[in-house]
């Protein structure tokens, strides 16, 4: 009967072997039956996610600069530079090597590069204008006070000047000049009155009016630039389309 018992023990071993084999097979089958190459998918997705994050951070940083919460352009330069690097990496690096010959992908990258280039130009305009604006905004209140001290109390020039400075400093909170015509009339009348002032005061007033003109001009262009840098569907749409379409395409076996 020994041989029967031995056979029984071997049968147990066979059963165990079969169960293990089945479990391993199931695991291997699970891996093989994955519909996409998760690795390629994740790599590409991470690049587009990075672009989306950078785009959002660009907008956030521009807002900080616009509202004087920051006065350092290194961060914004770094963000746009990162975005260019990511697109460059997608074009030339290994991340999207499986899509090198995909015409649609290459076209989308080209489009993205073009739009980033335009975005870069807009950013440069914003930085230059913002710096000039900030300079004038720093200057104006003190210059007004300084001049007002020297103008006779109750003089028409002093009153007009106060109104003018008040108007220009409130542009942003009011969302633009309420009456553009009024502003020009006020500027003209102050300039006329300036001709009666002594040379030294007139020179001070000329500088002040120059700054007011600059603020007025720049305040007209800044909102458009900020909008383009913070809400730019031309860029976000391309990134989103790429993020939806191409990681799956790259991951196909």
């Amino acid at each position, binding site marked *: 009967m020994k041989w029967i018992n031995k056979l029984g023990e071997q049968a147990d071993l066979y059963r165990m072997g079969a*169960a293990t084999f089945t479990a391993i097979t199931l695991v291997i089958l699970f*891996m093989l039956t994955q519909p996409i190459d998760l*690795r390629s998918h994740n790599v590409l997705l991470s690049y587009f996610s990075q672009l989306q994050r*950078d785009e959002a951070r660009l907008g956030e940083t521009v807002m900080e600069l616009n509202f004087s919460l920051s006065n*350092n*352009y*290194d961060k914004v330069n770094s963000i746009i530079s990162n975005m260019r690097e990511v697109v460059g990496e997608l074009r030339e690096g290994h991340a999207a090597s499986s899509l090198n010959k995909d015409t649609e992908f290459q076209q989308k990258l080209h489009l993205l590069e073009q739009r980033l280039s335009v975005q870069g130009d807009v950013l440069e305009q914003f930085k*230059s204008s913002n710096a000039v604006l900030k300079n004038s905004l720093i200057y104006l209140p003190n210059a007004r006070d300084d001049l007002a001290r020297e103008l006779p109390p109750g003089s028409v020039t002093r009153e007009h000047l106060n109104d003018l400075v008040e108007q220009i400093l409130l542009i942003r909170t009011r969302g633009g000049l309420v009456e553009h015509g009024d502003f020009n009339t006020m500027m003209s009348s102050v300039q006329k009155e300036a001709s009666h002032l002594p040379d030294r005061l007139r020179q001070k007033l000329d500088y002040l009016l120059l700054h007011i003109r600059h603020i007025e001009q720049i305040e007209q262009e800044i909102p458009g630039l900020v909008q383009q840098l913070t809400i730019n569907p031309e860029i976000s749409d391309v990134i989103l389309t790429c993020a939806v379409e191409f990681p799956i395409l790259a991951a196909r076996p």
Partner: protein
Amino acid sequence: MYLPKNKSMSARNIWIVATALFTAFLGGVGLFYIYEHNSSDFSTPTTVQDKTSAAPNPITPLPLSQSLDTRKVALGEELFNDPRLSGDGSISCAHCHNLATGGVDRLTYSRGIGGKEGGINAPTVFNSGFNFRQFWNGRAETLEDQIDGPLQNPVEMGSTWPGAIAALSEDQNYRSKFKTIYDDGIQPHNVKDAIATFERSLITPNSRFDRFLRGDKTALNNEEQAGYRLFKQLGCISCHQGINIGGNMYQKLGIMEDYFAARGHLTDADQGRFSVTNQARDRHFFKVPSLRNIALTPPYLHDGSAKELEDAVKVMARYQLGRKVDADEVSKIAAFLRTLTGEYKGKTLE
């Protein structure tokens, strides 16, 4: 036939099922590891590490050190000082960017091969790695791209890449060093890489102002601190900010008053960024220069028209800021600017 008792059969079955489940569990853990490993490797592209975590102060101090490939830095230094890169073998990069004189030649316009005069003031090579673009008109995006300019400019080094590579290839020392660092040996892109890496190493940290920013309030005397306050109050800081105190934006020269009409004799170099973009709005726009080590790099402005630091401050106040500044204010600002001189290789620049 072997017929086990019910009890032992049930125990055996449990054991078999447990083994199978354990194996499946191990497989699952393996799979999980593989996917996690892959995704952690690539969740953030290597090129897009966050380089923007610096606090948003208007000016930030320079780092005290950098991590660069020391072999490339050493090779780049040799190349930077090698006149064989020029067409007639007479001048090197260091000819116009002399490290002993603040990284410039202190001439109004630099002189290239055969004594030919250039059309613009040479900017300093110190801290140039922190500039967002290179050249006054920002036509080169990187230090590597920038090297093409002077090397091939007929009034600067007057060379060509084939000529320069041929000259360097005759030198056994270079052949051996390039082969050690670069798989493809002496090639234009490797020469650029080595020189640019050396240039990135040319940082001048630990200026008195940087020490002040790091909390040493005794690093600046009262006059210098007053100068810094004026620098901020007058609006200089609107453009001269960031780690390089400039070098991170373009600005028009003559915002408040026409600088070029006042100076006269318009040159090609005066066009500024317009010569790169051909956009009318870019006329007379220049990269805002870094103010680091500014006391060592006269004359000032792209045309070298301001001979002294005080002259440059007056020009900036009038044409850029639209302010009238008195002699005392100019003197204080200049005193502050002199605190921006940093150290190179542990010694304060002179």
